């Protein structure tokens, strides 16, 4: 049985779950049925996705329509190697075989737009990761959201979210890709604003939606540009498809009016979509605020869907990036984001916000990896990161769930790491699994994060020092620094949350921290609204009681943690290139040449990670005795800490520039609107007068005239009717008279 033929089922299963839960109210009303449908559909999709992955790994990805691609493959790989001109060296060796099938969708004139799905090695790998992570998140949600009044709605949303992501992965053309991409944008809006009665939540939802939209506009322009050039958006190397070698050659060598090659233009526009969706600088501002959504949503956005989509877009359209000179931009933005976000993460106190900035930073790693030509490394890190970041987010959800027993349902209190401490004693399973996630993210061998991060660092090292590329050197140094910071801030978080003494019995007052502006706003708002709506957004059903100990979460929440922890430990071994292991399975699976393991970069990376952990341990081991204590870093460098805590003021900057500009534009537009209003009103008045004139004409001339005509006709007809007596002799007499008259006329007139 060829499982590829059933690939279309993978997105349709969660989509079907979404439809069933949403449409049939009996399903919607029952928590067990709605979560059962969603989890069941997800389970089937997971089995199918892993089956497809297994089939692809054993038999390869042959299928409909790939014969033509086979011949073009070699040429493309060759071209890819010579295509980049930005002084970077590519490790990318083409996409390999693919199964592609579809149907004619929109036939207009001579062009036929095809819709279908496309499975090759990266798609299969992503499918396996997304389905598994999403399944874990679904199961976790059934515990985490158990007491929420809109439980079923939550499951319908996350099913749609996952379905969009899976549809995007499987899309065989960039239009379908874009449709699913936008569907994800919608779902992120719905889910970040799921607790819409919190003002901060709906603001965060709007912010996420609008910010990503800025990138999406660029991406759409890129798609239009590409369609204009290629006449097709179909993935593949065949004739008339966008990865056709001659086509790439052509757009790589043609220059447009801006003086850059067409391929560079398209790639940069497409990359705008990535910057928005994967929250790269300068459109990163939405991702930390997206923490307002329920924690499983954060996990879904940060691991399996949404942000992965942006990186996947670059990975998917990589030949276009190679054909032009866009990759240095990609590398610089990625590296900058990696360091920038890691610095901010150092000074945050909200457990989810720290993880959010760490996601930004790790996405920067992936984007930078793609930017320096490490296609396989970037994709590898995307996969491993998804597992341990889902684990960390679900772990933080479990922590928050436990904390709420102690500090009540205040997101500010329950998520502040200064109120935690010693949770390893109260929540052992959460603690162990979180430890796994922490070590994986920090890049300690043999955890998954080490292998993938090391591959990125090795690639950039090779490009920079062996290849003599300045960008490679910059990226390598930036990423190494970011890796050190990652280890440091994760140690800070881990130590403060799980070690020391529990401080939640005496939590920080909500507004003790003037520097945390957003958090304070949140606090005020939820206090105002929260007293009345507490029962509504109370996700966990406990009344706001305090002075209880935190407790371990139910099995529905710990089971996904355990599964993900195993992957955080083991997922890296699919590509563990160190000599005693020599596993290059994943690289071969992606049809790439196996990278050589670089002991130097691995040693430096591990050393930096251990240094970061040591530093973090020393600084934060005894830092917080009371929840109101000052952060040691703040004590050392208050100014710097404030800047970092304030996220470099990017939000304020946008508020002062884009926000102000928008306000000003609004005022200006209102003035124009007034003027337009005047014109419109004048036109309306004139129309009214004209109408009255018409009315007069109508009523007195046309109406009356027609009436008179009708009356005259009736009267005449009535008169004439009298002569038609029906008596033959009357007619005869009339004829006689007529003849007589005609005769008289004849006699006397002529």
């Amino acid at each position, binding site marked *: 049985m060829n499982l590829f033929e059933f690939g279309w089922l993978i997105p349709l299963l969660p989509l079907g779950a979404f439809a069933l839960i949403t449409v049939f109210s009996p399903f919607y009303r029952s928590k067990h049925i709605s979560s059962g449908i969603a989890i069941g559909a997800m389970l089937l999709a997971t089995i199918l996705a892993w089956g497809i992955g297994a089939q692809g790994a054993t038999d390869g990805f042959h299928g409909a329509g790939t014969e033509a691609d086979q011949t073009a493959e070699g040429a493309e790989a060759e071209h890819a190697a010579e295509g980049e001109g930005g002084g970077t060296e590519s490790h990318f060796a083409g996409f390999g075989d693919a199964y592609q099938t579809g149907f004619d969708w929109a036939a207009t004139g001579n062009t036929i737009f095809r819709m279908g799905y496309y499975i090759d090695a990266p798609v299969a790998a992503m499918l396996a990761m997304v389905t598994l992570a999403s399944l874990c998140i679904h199961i976790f949600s059934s515990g985490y959201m158990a007491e929420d009044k809109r439980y079923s709605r939550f499951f319908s949303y996350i099913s749609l979210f996952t379905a969009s992501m899976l549809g995007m992965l499987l899309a065989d053309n960039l239009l379908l890709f874009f449709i699913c991409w936008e569907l994800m944008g919608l779902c992120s809006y719905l889910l970040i604003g799921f607790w819409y009665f919190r003002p901060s939540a709906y603001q965060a939802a709007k912010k996420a939606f609008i910010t990503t939209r800025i990138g999406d506009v660029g991406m759409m322009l890129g798609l239009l540009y590409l369609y204009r050039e290629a006449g097709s958006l179909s993935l593949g190397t065949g004739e008339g498809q966008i990865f056709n070698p001659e086509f790439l050659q052509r757009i790589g060598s043609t220059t447009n009016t801006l003086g850059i090659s067409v391929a560079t233009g398209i790639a940069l526009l497409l990359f705008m979509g990535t910057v928005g969706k994967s929250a790269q600088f300068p459109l990163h501002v939405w991702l930390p605020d997206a923490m307002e959504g329920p924690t499983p949503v954060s996990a879904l956005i940060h691991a399996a869907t949404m942000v992965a989509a942006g990186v996947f877009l670059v990975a998917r359209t990589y030949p276009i990036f190679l054909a032009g000179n866009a990759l240095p931009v990609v590398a610089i933005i990625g590296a900058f984001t990696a360091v920038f976000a890691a610095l901010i993460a150092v000074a945050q106190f909200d457990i989810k916000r720290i993880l959010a900035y760490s996601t930004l930073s790790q996405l920067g790693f992936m984007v930078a990896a793609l930017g320096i030509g490490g296609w396989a490394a970037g994709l590898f890190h995307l996969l491993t990161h998804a597992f341990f970041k889902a684990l960390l987010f679900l772990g933080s959800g479990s922590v928050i769930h436990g904390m709420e027993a102690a500090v009540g349902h205040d997101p500010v209190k329950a998520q502040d790491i200064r109120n935690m401490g010693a949770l390893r004693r109260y929540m052992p399973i959460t603690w162990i699994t979180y430890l796994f996630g922490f070590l994986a993210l920090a890049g300690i061998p043999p955890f998954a994060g080490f292998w993938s991060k090391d591959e990125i660092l090795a690639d950039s090292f090779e490009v920079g020092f062996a290849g003599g590329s300045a960008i490679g050197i910059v990226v390598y140094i930036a990423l190494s620094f970011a890796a050190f910071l990652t280890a440091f801030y994760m140690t800070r978080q881990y130590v403060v949350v799980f070690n020391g003494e529990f401080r939640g019995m005496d939590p920080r007052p909500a507004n003790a921290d003037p520097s945390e502006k957003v958090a304070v706003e949140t606090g005020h708002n939820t206090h105002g609204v929260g007293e009345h709506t507490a029962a509504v957004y109370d996700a966990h059903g406990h009344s706001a009681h305090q002075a209880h100990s935190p407790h371990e979460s139910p099995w529905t929440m710990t089971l996904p943690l355990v599964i993900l922890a195993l992957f955080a430990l083991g997922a890296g071994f699919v590509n563990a290139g160190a000599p005693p292991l020599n596993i290059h399975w994943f690289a071969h699976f992606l049809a790439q040449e196996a990278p050589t393991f670089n002991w130097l970069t691995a040693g430096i990376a591990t050393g930096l990670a251990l240094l970061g952990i040591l530093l973090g341990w020393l600084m934060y081991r005894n830092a917080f005795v009371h929840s109101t204590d000052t952060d040691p870093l703040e004590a050392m460098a208050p100014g710097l800490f404030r800047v970092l805590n304030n996220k470099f003021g990017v939000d304020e900057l946008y508020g002062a520039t884009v926000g102000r500009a928008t306000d000003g534009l609004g005022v200006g537009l209102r003035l124009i609107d007034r003027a337009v209003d005047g014109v419109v009103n004048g036109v309306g008045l004139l129309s009214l007068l004209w109408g009255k004139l018409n009315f007069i004409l109508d009523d007195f001339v046309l109406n009356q005239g027609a009436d008179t005509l009708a009356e005259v006709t009736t009267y005449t007809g009535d008169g004439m009717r009298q002569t038609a007596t029906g008596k033959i*002799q009357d007619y005869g007499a009339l004829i006689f008279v007529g003849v007589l008259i005609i005769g008289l006329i004849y006699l006397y007139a002529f």
Partner: protein
Amino acid sequence: MNEVRTSIVTAVPLEWVLLVAAGLFCIGLFGALSRRNIVGILMGVELMLNAVNINLIAFWRYLEPTSTSGLVFSIFTITVAAAEVAVGLAMVISVYRTRRTINADEIDTLRG
């Protein structure tokens, strides 16, 4: 004796014949318009036709005695009149059968 052969042409002027025909026509017309019995009306019509016949014959005999068209015309008229009477009487019988009357005043279905 030199007998003066007198024909009707010399003995009777054309105008007299025409007057007879006109009189006959007027009698027929009066009959056709005044009788209430349909059969009477038909008889009046026959009188008018015969007045026409007299005219035709008279004009032929007095003005164009060498041609035959006058004779032929009148023969046609007589034939048509015969046919007309046949059809007319058949209609009268048919009307009588359906309406039990042949009074022309009572047969006014076509009244407007």
